[in-house]
Every structure is written in structure tokens, then in C-alpha cells.
């Protein structure tokens, strides 16, 4: 449990310098998914790693101030909606699910261009969904618990192993 935050100037300064570059790299991985290795999933995980770095270096409160768990779940749903919406749009236009060539008359571009744009849109959706799902998992696993324990929750007796941790 990361309940205690230690102010570490070196780690915080390096995180402040390096986090924008991590996020730009994640956007590059998402946008170049159909030319080079990468794609929505990998880019989303890198974005979530930047948020996890904020979480680790500055503590949970600083991370939650930027993106709280509720917003993360909503963003996850929006990402899935973008993905499924583009697929269903192709379905409505008369093709198969995710058959981007049917989007060409709607977007007013050539068929290869429409395929490229469709893949880009789907990957943006996947990246959003993966980033926010990973971030909410990180908050659930490593964060302070915000949910009260159930009434029949049995408090285990404290053992010596519970005292292992950062010394005050």
C-alpha cells in the first residue's frame, strides 16, 4: 500500500521532465500503429505508464487530481464506444463489421484513405479504453482504499510481517 509519500526531489524532477515525452511517444505509437510496430493497445499502456509514474512519484492524490477513477471508467466506456461505433457505422453503410472501405463515401475520400482513417479512429478508441482501464486497475491495486470494508469483514490479527515497510 502506498499510503505514505516520501518527497524525493530527484525522482520528482526527473518524472516532471520525462512524463511529457512519454506521453508524446505514446501518441506516436498510437498514430503509427498501421505503419510500424505498435498500435492502440501498446500506446494506451504507455499512456497508463505515464500516469502510473505520476502516481508513484507524487502520490495518489496528485494522480487522482489529474484523472480520478470515475473519469477513468467513463473514458474507458467512451473508448469502447468509439471502437464499436466505427464498426457499426461500417455495418450501417452496408459492409461487414469494421469494413472501413464503406466509409469512403461518407468521409468523401478514396478507399485506401478511408481504410487508413478508419484504423486510426479504431486505434484511438482502443488507446483510450486501454489507458483508462489500466489506470483504474492501478488505482484499485495500489491505491488507498476509498470503499468501506463490508460489515462481516474479519480483521486479521496483526503479525510481525505487517510491520515490514518503510520506517517512519
Amino acid at each position, binding site marked *: 500500500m502506498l499510503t505514505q509519500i*516520501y518527497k*524525493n526531489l530527484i525522482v520528482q524532477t*526527473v518524472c516532471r*521532465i*520525462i512524463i511529457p515525452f512519454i506521453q508524446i511517444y505514446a501518441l506516436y505509437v498510437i498514430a503509427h500503429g498501421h505503419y510500424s510496430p505498435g498500435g492502440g493497445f501498446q500506446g494506451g499502456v504507455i499512456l497508463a505508464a505515464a500516469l502510473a509514474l505520476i502516481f508513484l512519484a507524487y502520490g495518489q492524490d496528485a494522480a487522482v487530481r489529474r484523472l480520478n477513477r470515475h473519469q477513468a471508467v467513463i473514458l474507458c466506456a467512451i473508448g469502447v464506444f468509439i471502437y464499436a461505433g466505427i464498426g457499426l457505422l461500417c455495418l450501417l453503410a452496408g459492409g461487414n463489421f469494421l469494413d472501413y472501405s464503406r466509409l469512403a463515401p461518407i468521409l468523401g475520400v478514396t478507399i485506401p484513405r478511408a481504410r487508413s482513417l478508419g484504423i486510426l479512429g479504431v486505434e484511438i478508441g482502443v488507446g483510450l479504453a486501454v489507458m483508462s482501464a489500466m489506470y483504474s486497475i492501478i488505482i484499485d491495486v495500489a491505491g488507498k482504499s476509498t470503499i468501506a470494508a463490508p460489515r462481516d469483514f474479519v480483521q486479521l490479527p496483526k503479525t510481525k510481517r505487517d510491520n*515490514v*515497510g*518503510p*520506517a517512519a
Partner: protein
Amino acid sequence: MSNINLPFHDICAIILILGGLFFFFTSTVGLLRFPDLYTRMHATGKGDTLAVLLIISGAILHHGLNLDSAKLLLISVFISIANPTGTHAIGRAAYRCGIKPWLKKDVSKVK
């Protein structure tokens, strides 16, 4: 053998990459043979960073100046920032957790 004539930058690249491999080897030996966390981190934290930087600079020399070598240069800059910071954070966390540094047996007896 005498008709092998590599260009000068390729010879430099080979020397750099071999140096990088040497430092990878020594840091791995240190990781396997040193007695506790701090000494192991001392071996890998410095050796790995230097080895990666040497190998990347060798690859840049081999590749010449273009977009790929610019990307490699960026990678080496970020590794040289992030790797020592990670080592610092791990060492600090271990010290906070109360892990005792390794001492020679006779030293601890004197104490």
C-alpha cells in the same frame, strides 16, 4: 585476411559495441556474484547504463546520420536520464525498508 578493409567508422562501431558487450558481461557477473542488494545495484546500475550507451553510439556510427540515428540518440538521452534515477529510487526504497548493507564477518565481530 589482408584484403579485408572496413571503413573507419565501422571499425569504431565494432570497438564501441564490443566495449558495450564487455560492460554488459561485467555487470551480469556482478549481479550474479555480489553478496547483497546494494553491491549488485552498484554493479548493474552503472554497468548497464554505460553498456547501452556504448552499443547505441556504435549503432549510430554504423548507421550514419539519418532519422533512425536521431531516434537512437533520443533513446540514449532518455536512458541516461531514466536509468540512474531508477537505480536511485530502488536503492532509496531498499534503505527505507531497513535492508542492512553487507559487511565482512570479521568487521561485524569487531562491532
